[in-house]
């Protein structure tokens, strides 16, 4: 086949994005689970995993640079590479946000929770599901699926609103619960921002497939 | 093959080929030597400018033969050069068809015409028709030998002009005939001139065709429709006589002929050493 080395490089790039996606998804799930179960060990694992996520980000950036400099990619190859570059940035930020959640776990694990966690884990689940489908859309070049995934961000936003209001009422009710409520508010905020980043991922997938820039937020 | 063996074979072959060159040159050099030795004594101003003396008398020269050669060769050029060059241009530039290929083939065949046949042609066409030997007949006979050579060399020279030059000219909006005349012809100029000069050199020395066309004359040329003296014929005529004086003159004539041809060939060298060209 023509340009075999180049094709292998492109394939490797795609694999790296998919790997990064699943790593970040795991980090998000584990960080929230560690919060729910007050599991400091798990939280530490999430914090350690961030190194791997960053390493993948660097590798993807390197590969994109090399492909751009050496192979003069055009059309769909070029769009793939540009999208991969953008997606790795969003994924890396998502990884950082999961890390922040794990840090909060470590900080608050010694204190009993102010309320049972229901909505927050729900938000995390939705995020994980969205990431999974975004990766499928990326692999299959499915722009329609990407758009569908992006729409679910509304669910996360609604849940965030709900959680925030609930926590505010907790803070008003019982001033002793203020710190705890604040931490949880932060966690919910982080998950909401993760949702926004996932929407960015979907926009990149749509661009990769159609060449159009869309706003899916 | 080992290096040493190759070296010795190389040396042997170089020696053999060089020897062959020497062997090939020897006849040429010996001719030059003999002609010069024998002819130089009779070569003087009188020889070049005077008419021959009657049989038995010494003195005089081959002035009329020299004049005649120029005239007859001149006539041949007047006929042969335009026809040959134009035919060559036609075949090369306009003849990508059956007719063109046919003409080229015929020209090829005619380059091998025996010179006596050219003479018979001139005899039948001009001498018999007009009733007398003449300079014109001689010129026509020589042109028959000249035309095929000039045609072929012109054609070859023009073919050597790269097609890209012609394309460049056409793409500028220069019509084909101007392209041929001004661009192609000037690029092939040296080749064409070389071919012309070489063919002139060749026909200057032809004897057989002139024997029964221009025939010969002991006096200065007195009309193109009259028999005329030429160098090769005069040399032949003198050589078969028993007179030593005329023999000496024949040698001198041969020397003059050779010098003439030498000048023409040197002229070729100058032409090919041009400013810029293909």
């Amino acid at each position, binding site marked *: 086949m023509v340009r075999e080395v180049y094709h292998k490089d492109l394939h490797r790039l795609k694999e790296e994005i998919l790997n990064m996606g699943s790593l970040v998804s795991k980090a998000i799930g584990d960080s929230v689970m560690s919060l729910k179960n007050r599991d400091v060990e798990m939280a530490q694992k999430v914090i350690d995993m961030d190194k791997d996520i960053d390493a993948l980000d660097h590798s993807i950036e390197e590969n994109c640079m090399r492909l751009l400099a050496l192979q003069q990619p055009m059309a769909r190859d070029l*769009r793939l590479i540009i999208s991969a570059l953008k997606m790795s940035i969003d994924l890396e930020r998502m990884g950082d946000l999961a890390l922040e959640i794990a840090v909060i776990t470590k900080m608050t694990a010694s204190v009993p929770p102010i309320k049972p966690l229901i909505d927050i884990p729900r938000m995390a689940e939705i995020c994980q599901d969205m990431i999974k489908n975004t990766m499928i859309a990326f692999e299959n070049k499915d722009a329609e699926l990407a758009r569908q995934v992006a729409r679910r961000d509304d669910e996360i936003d609604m849940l965030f609103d709900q959680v925030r209001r609930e926590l505010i009422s907790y803070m008003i009710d019982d001033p002793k619960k203020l710190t705890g409520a604040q931490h949880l508010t932060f966690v919910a905020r982080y998950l909401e921002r993760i949702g926004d980043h996932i929407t960015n991922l979907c926009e990149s997938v749509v661009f990769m497939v159609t060449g159009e820039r869309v706003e899916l937020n | 093959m080992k290096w040493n063996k190759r070296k010795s074979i190389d040396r042997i072959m170089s020696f053999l080929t060089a020897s062959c060159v020497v062997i090939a040159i020897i006849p040429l050099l010996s001719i030059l030597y003999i002609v010069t030795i024998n002819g130089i004594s009779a070569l003087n101003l009188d020889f070049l400018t005077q008419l021959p003396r009657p049989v038995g008398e010494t003195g005089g020269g081959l002035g009329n033969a020299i004049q005649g050669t120029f005239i007859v060769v001149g006539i041949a050029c007047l006929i042969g050069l335009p026809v040959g060059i134009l035919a060559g241009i036609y075949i090369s530039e306009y003849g990508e068809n059956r007719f063109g290929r046919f003409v080229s083939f015929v020209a090829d065949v005619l380059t091998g015409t025996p010179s006596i046949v050219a003479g018979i042609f001139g005899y039948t066409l001009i001498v018999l028709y007009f009733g007398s030997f003449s300079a014109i007949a001689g010129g026509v006979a020589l042109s028959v030998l000249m035309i095929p050579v000039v045609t072929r060399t012109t054609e070859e020279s023009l073919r050597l002009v790269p097609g890209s030059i012609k394309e460049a000219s056409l793409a500028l909006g220069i019509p084909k005939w101007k392209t041929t005349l001004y661009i192609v012809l000037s690029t092939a100029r040296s080749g064409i001139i070389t071919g012309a000069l070489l063919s002139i050199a060749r026909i200057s020395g032809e004897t057989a065709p002139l024997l029964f066309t221009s025939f010969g004359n002991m006096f200065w040329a007195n009309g193109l429709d009259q028999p005329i003296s030429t160098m090769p014929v005069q040399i032949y005529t003198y050589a078969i006589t028993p007179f030593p004086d005329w023999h000496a003159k024949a040698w001198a004539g041969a020397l003059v002929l050779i010098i003439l041809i030498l000048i023409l060939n040197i002229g070729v060298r100058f032409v090919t050493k041009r400013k810029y060209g293909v």
Partner: protein
Amino acid sequence: MENKITVENLDAWFGAKQVLHEISLGIEKNGITAIIGPSGCGKSTFIRCINRMHEVVPGAKAIGKVLVDDRDIYDRDIDPVDIRRRIGMVFQKPNPFPTMSIRDNVVAGLKLGGIKEKKTLDTVAEDSLKKAALWDEVKNDLNKSGASLSGGQQQRLCIARALAVEPEVILFDEPCSALDPISTSKIEDLMLELKEKYTLVIVTHNMQQAARVSDRTAFFLYGKLIESGETNQIFKKPKEKSTEDYIIGRFG
């Protein structure tokens, strides 16, 4: 931007072999149109039909309409020689006239067109050499042989020669194939300058050159026009899969 040239249903043959099939394409005025495609796809034949050089080859034939400013140049009463003056061509291998000096090369088209006045010719020579970005390099050597220049300079000399007859369109048939990268860049820069006054069409097998230089690109394959459009769009997201496959090197 309106079209300078409109090609309608152009077919072309070499003898019995058809090499162009129903090509219909517009060439934008004062722009650079690139023609790309694999070897043998008919791109050179196509531009040679535009300046009626195709028919110079024995046995070659072209049927169709090529409208330049709304007049069909294949009309019976149009003189092909006149078309070739209005539509100039620069070839793959630089081909200055070997027997002429640099100056004479530049004005060859004019001289043989009947203009003899030395002053006029000198002015035109200087103008054309300046337009071709060659003046500074040769202004003191105008009487030197055209063949004494480097490859890139020779090509610019050929461009000056084409400019001297004041064409409206200039066709470039793989003009940089035989040149080094720096000469190539110089000629590409020159083309970008020239497009302000002239309409340019460039045939190239160098994708990156087409992408760098042209405003519109047309992709040819097996003698057919597969796709044409804005260069930006063709190289970002072509409509036809075969176009994309060719552009990203997936052919074969």
